[in-house]
């Protein structure tokens, strides 16, 4: 090393020391608590003075965009003293930028944060979003929104427990994973829409024997199989067990016989050739598009495909909840809400922010949502659905949320579960691992997290 090199090394070292000024994260506002402003909640938005609210949302697609801009316009008209500065980004962009924005000095007032531990959970832990319990009482959200809906946006104040505790966000729309079927094809095959799992098994077998693709799956993105598994898991496992697994609460086990049985069922479907060829290399979007063109009989997917499938297939496509194990039994399936809206701890006028959230989740707002083809999270059955498929989906969601049959997305369990679940199910469906090994891999992820 010659002299110049040594000088530059020294310079680098000095630079490093300058950088090393403080502990990362220490410039955050740690003193601020998320104490619920129960005592001093004001609900009269007209008397809050002039306020500008910065709102970050991800309602960018067709019907979502329309309902949001309609509601904002109505809100500003009703309360001229409150201006909404809206920043909307796609879901992916929002996920990437929200963390930075929240830790910045001019954080937005209202944000649409994903329910997951990796997002909302982290914000709760860092005290960057405030508890909405006070507002829930004042506005009556706690009676309008059923427990199963509120629980998916609830955390303990330290962010450790998911699924109970304080309410941190209010969702607008609902989501349910169920079964789309090609009604025309079913009629041709002489199959009735299955009312029990036994009937479903028979329907799949009949479809296969008559040369159809019984089940359409596109799993290159890894996560779609998680929804498929959720449905099959609901056939065997108990709701409270799945909830514990999904919320990452201790006391359940992935290696329990019910879950292994669900995994075995999936593998047996692969063995019987029920899926389209090469599903692990197939695009999710291409898969449902192919279904919409008449390939395949059943598609296990979420309510979010309703508008697109209905446009493509008109009356030929129908939706139903997964069948119960026995006729008349209780159905359990994956579902939840769209991204909930939360109030940041940096919001200057939390009351105004709450008034905004109340406005966009009010009964009138639910109608606006439905009119624009979205699935309202509450009062679903009171809305007039856009078409036949819409009627199916609205009905299914209303029925299952009333019956408390919704269980959380399995990848919510731990920060790493999305990836573990996706990769493990790809392994399982490609028969790289046995059902027992696959469930053990999920158990390891779950156990490591809940043991903390």
């Amino acid at each position, binding site marked *: 090393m010659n002299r110049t090199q040594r000088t530059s090394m020294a310079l680098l070292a000095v630079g490093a020391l300058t950088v090393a000024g403080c502990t990362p994260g220490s410039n955050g506002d740690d003193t601020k608590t998320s104490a619920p402003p129960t005592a001093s909640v004001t609900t009269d938005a007209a008397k809050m003075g002039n306020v500008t609210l910065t709102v970050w949302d991800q309602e960018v697609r067709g019907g979502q965009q329309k309902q949001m801009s309609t509601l904002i316009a109505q809100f500003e008209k009703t309360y001229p003293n409150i201006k909404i500065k809206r920043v909307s980004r796609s879901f992916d962009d929002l996920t990437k930028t929200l963390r930075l924005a929240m830790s910045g000095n001019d954080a937005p007032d209202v944000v649409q944060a994903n329910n997951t531990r990796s997002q909302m959970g982290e914000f709760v832990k860092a005290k960057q979003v405030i508890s909405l319990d006070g507002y829930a009482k004042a506005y009556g959200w706690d009676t309008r929104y059923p427990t199963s809906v509120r629980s998916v946006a609830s955390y303990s104040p330290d962010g450790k427990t998911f699924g109970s505790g304080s309410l941190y966000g209010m969702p607008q729309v609902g989501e349910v994973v169920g079964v789309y079927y090609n009604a025309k094809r079913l009629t041709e095959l002489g199959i009735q829409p299955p009312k029990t799992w036994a009937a479903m098994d028979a329907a799949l077998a009949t479809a296969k024997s008559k040369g159809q693709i019984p089940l359409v799956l596109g799993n290159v993105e890894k996560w779609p199989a998680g929804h498929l598994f959720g449905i099959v898991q609901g056939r065997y496992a108990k709701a409270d067990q799945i909830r514990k697994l999904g919320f990452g609460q201790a006391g359940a086990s992935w290696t329990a016989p019910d879950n292994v049985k669900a995994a075995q069922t999936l593998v047996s479907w692969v063995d019987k050739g029920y899926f389209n060829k090469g599903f692990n*290399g197939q695009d999710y979007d291409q898969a449902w598009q192919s279904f919409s063109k008449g390939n395949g009989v059943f598609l296990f997917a979420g309510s979010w495909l309703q508008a697109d499938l209905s446009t493509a297939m008109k009356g030929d496509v129908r939706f139903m909840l997964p069948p119960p194990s026995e006729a008349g039994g209780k159905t359990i399936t994956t579902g939840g809400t769209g991204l909930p809206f939360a109030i940041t701890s940096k919001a200057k006028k939390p009351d105004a922010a709450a008034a905004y959230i109340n406005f966009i989740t009010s009964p009138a707002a639910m109608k606006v949502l439905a009119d624009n083809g979205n699935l309202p999270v509450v009062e679903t059955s009171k809305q007039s659905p856009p078409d036949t498929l819409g009627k199916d989906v609205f009905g299914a969601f209303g029925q299952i949320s009333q019956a408390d049959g919704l269980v959380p997305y399995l990848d919510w369990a731990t920060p790493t579960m999305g990836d573990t679940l996706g990769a493990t199910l790809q392994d399982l469906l490609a028969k790289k691992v046995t059902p027992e090994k696959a469930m053990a891999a999920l158990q390891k992820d779950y156990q490591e997290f809940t043991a903390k």
Partner: protein
Amino acid sequence: MSRTRTAGPPGEPRRVGYLYVLPAFAVYAAFALYPLLKAVYLSFWDWDGLTLATWVGLGNYADVFGDERLRASFGHALVLMAFFAVLPLLVGLVLAAVLHRAKVRGLSFFRTVVFLPQVVAMVVIAVAWRRLYSPDGSLNSVLSAIGLDSWTRGWLGDYTFALPAVGVIGTWFESGLVTVLLLAGMSRIPRELYEAARIDGAGPVREFFAVTLPSVRGEIAVALTLTVIAALKTFDLIYMTTSGGPGHETTVPSYEVYRQAFELGHVGLASTIGVVLTAIIFVISFAITRIGDRVTD
């Protein structure tokens, strides 16, 4: 009346010279050095990006080398290097040699065509190839049409072929760049060398190894540096095609950086992977330029 400057012969650089470098250095320091140092600094902490961090020293580095999955991601990057750097070099050498020798009409047209992949955004390329590789995509249709039905598969979901399939996209992407670089190098070789070789009785193959290849060593070094770096830092391609799947068969370090930082909130560990990756890229490109320099001297 003596000049103030005392030491050194005329023309010897003076301290004032640093002043000229300063503006460029300031920009470089602000946008490259500072972030780099910050990343190195962050790599010693366990930080979720939001709350107060805890000092873990070299713990994150132990994780990078100890975690089977992270280690595997570096292995995948090495495999991709073969597809991104070695294969394009071979393809490029052959293509460039042929184009150079054959004196094709409309050479600039061909040059543009082979270079075209470089102009298209990687995301677009990834989406296009994903369609190509899909179970009902063109590749499988062609295979079926020529009677190789048993070979058809969902390429990106296949445990054996997913990584090579992604690699081939890289080969297709980089070959044009390498070809154009080599063509430029070959065009500078003096005619006389070829004439001399021919008088000595060399055929086209001999001519290639005796004259063409040694003359473009510098270009080969440049091409290898560029493509190797591209291979090691590839992210968009993986993100858009396989998300690291099936299982974990195609994850690469930069994809892990993204996953750790943005999905899991392990900013410290993400920085560590980034730092290790930077070090590896630095060492490899240093070695390549060293070798390239030595042979051109």
